[in-house]
């Protein structure tokens, strides 16, 4: 707060323009928010360099191929954005429940169910293609929402969401496998469902961006909606209150269990839509085995983006680029593709480590840590 008197006797400083002040503060806040992710990313690349050296490859060549493959050309950006699209959704699926103090590791299963629901609707429903697309995405979101509500309800019975969401992932993957191989099985030679008709697919963005599709824009819209829900609605306030101080929220008459359930179900909604958009935009069907780890990678995306929708979008592009670049790195420098997963995990390992930031910038680091924490043990 600026509490200086308006008219100082000597050499009054020219009053700062309010707009510039606001921008400066916002940039300052964004800059501080980037401290942890930046430290974590630098450490991850350092660990990655050691790993590459240990396998006897050239770190410089590997990392330049990684960057080139992720961001070096329009085609590279196309692959990056293609990868980033589902990660925006699965990142939001973690970020939103996190605001209520719940750790949703169930994005994987929620995405699977969204994908199969979208395929089911898109292959059975007749009518104008745009309406079918909308119906398929709604079905995907609904499937994810309901699957996400289960760990929310179980939390009320004392079952920790970290364990139940993981268990529900395995159940969902088996359920989707059965659905795709039995009632929804297609005639194709490769196991899986039938394919969605071309008019019901999401169009490509064009502009030299390869296979990147309109789902990306839906992802950006989803991020904006998530932002508005969390920071501009009474429900969002209740969810954040439950995450920041459950006891205080309870005392203020905000029901903790209901808001937690709603937050994780909304997370499931985003993951489900992500699954629907992935099949409508990329694969056109659910093949068995279906694409793996989009849900898990959403955890890294959300935490790198500090559980803020804008951060989630940036995190998704970062990891999307990492995955795209890893292909180039494998091709050019003979470093296995899985290094991208290793880098992601190491980022995640360090991104909440207040100790590192304290070593670097002293005790001020503690002030930068978000109030919402998970660490409350595994009992209900």
């Amino acid at each position, binding site marked *: 707060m600026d509490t200086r008197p308006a008219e100082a006797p000597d050499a009054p400083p020219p009053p700062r323009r309010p707009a510039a002040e606001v921008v400066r503060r916002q940039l300052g806040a964004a800059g501080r928010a980037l401290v942890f992710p930046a430290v974590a990313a630098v450490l991850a690349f350092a660990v990655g360099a050691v790993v590459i050296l240990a396998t006897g490859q050239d770190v410089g060549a590997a990392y330049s191929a990684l960057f080139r493959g992720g961001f070096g050309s329009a085609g590279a950006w196309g692959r990056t954005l293609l990868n980033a699209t589902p990660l925006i959704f699965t990142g939001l699926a973690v970020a939103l429940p996190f605001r209520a103090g719940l*750790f949703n590791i169930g994005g994987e299963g929620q995405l699977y169910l969204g994908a199969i629901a979208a395929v089911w609707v898109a292959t059975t429903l007749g009518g104008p293609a745009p309406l079918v697309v909308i119906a398929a995405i709604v079905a995907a979101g609904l499937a994810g929402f309901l699957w996400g509500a289960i760990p929310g309800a*179980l939390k009320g019975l004392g079952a920790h969401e970290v364990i139940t969401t993981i268990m529900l992932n395995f159940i969902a993957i*088996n359920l989707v496998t059965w659905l795709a191989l039995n009632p929804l099985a297609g005639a194709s030679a490769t196991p899986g469902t039938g394919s969605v008709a071309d008019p019901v697919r999401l169009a490509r963005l064009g502009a030299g961006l390869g296979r990147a599709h309109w789902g990306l824009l839906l992802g950006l819209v989803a991020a904006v909606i998530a932002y508005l829900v969390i920071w501009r609605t009474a429900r969002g306030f209740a969810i954040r209150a439950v995450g920041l101080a459950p006891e205080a929220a309870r005392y203020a008459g905000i029901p903790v269990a209901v808001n937690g359930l709603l937050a994780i179900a909304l997370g499931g909604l985003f993951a489900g839509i992500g699954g629907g958009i992935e099949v409508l935009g990329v694969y056109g069907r659910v093949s068995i085995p279906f694409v793996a780890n989009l849900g898990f990678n959403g955890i890294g995306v959300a*935490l790198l983006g500090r559980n803020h929708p804008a951060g989630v979008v940036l995190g998704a592009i970062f990891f999307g680029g990492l995955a795209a670049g890893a292909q180039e790195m494998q091709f050019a420098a003979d470093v296995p593709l899985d290094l991208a997963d290793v880098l992601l995990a190491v980022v995640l390992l*360090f991104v909440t480590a207040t100790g590192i930031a304290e070593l670097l910038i002293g005790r001020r680091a503690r002030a930068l840590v978000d109030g919402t924490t998970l*660490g409350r043990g*595994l009992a209900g």
Partner: protein
Amino acid sequence: MDDVLGLGPLLASTIRFATPLGFAALGGLFSERSGVVNIALEGMMLISAFAGVVGSYASGSALVGLATGLAAGLLIGLVHAAVSVSLQADQIISGTAINLLALGGTGFLMETVFGSGGTSPRVSAFDPVRIPGLADIPIIGEALFNQSVLVYLLYLLVPLTVFVLRRTRFGLRLRATGEVPEAVDTAGISVVRMRYAGVALSGMLAALGGVYLSMGVALSGMLAALGGVYLSMSLLSAFTENMTLGRGFIALAALIFGRWTPVGAIGAALLFGLAQALVVTRGSDVPIPQEFVAMFPYVLTIIALATFGGRAVAPAASGKPYRKE
């Protein structure tokens, strides 16, 4: 006495399913009792399962594999401790990071060490060792005492854990660290050191579970013991990517279900093992699609947590980073 109901094979199968869960649950116990939530059991098992196979592959000796597996578990335990205790990261997030690191890291190392992903070459494993006398007990003898040495190790570790936690100075200090770290600190004992010890032990115990998964039983032994159903189990003497399939989390659920006590945790692990063994050995009598059979342990885990999880009492300081004021 004839085993008309097939109880012997059922018990043998139960032990095989319960053993990796039992090791990991004991591992979770030491970590949680020191005040560190260990979501990373899954990743610790997976990395150790891989490290064990590499050690056994390189040396031709299962014992060397056990040593490399244990070393990997210890290392990952120390990483979890360093990040969550020293660097004060969120313990649940740090554990999740280790799980993802294990998944990506073992995939990366499969390519680097064996040149391809998927499944590693077959390695020397721990053949079942028949204990004369005990194995001759009717019905249960063969099931309990014609097992891998790792299973016998688990039999010994259960009473040992009870003794260490209840009767030794280390056990008392460890439990106190998980309940009231401030008091431990005031008594001049290092909270950090106790938590490192708890998490490191946790890593090594989870490692035993992982090593049992990847090299607990040689294929010949499996065939003889299970008569055909071996294919639905992953207990082969090789490493397969993501072979733990959530067992670390099921072990955590067993720990909670067993109320953070060694005997309770082992009991819960045996219960989960029995349920899975029933499905595998008797499941073919009922026409259920294999996907639904595969869901069973996960559904059971959720039911167990939802029924009894709420009444469980976790160590009071579990999950909270400790800061000296």
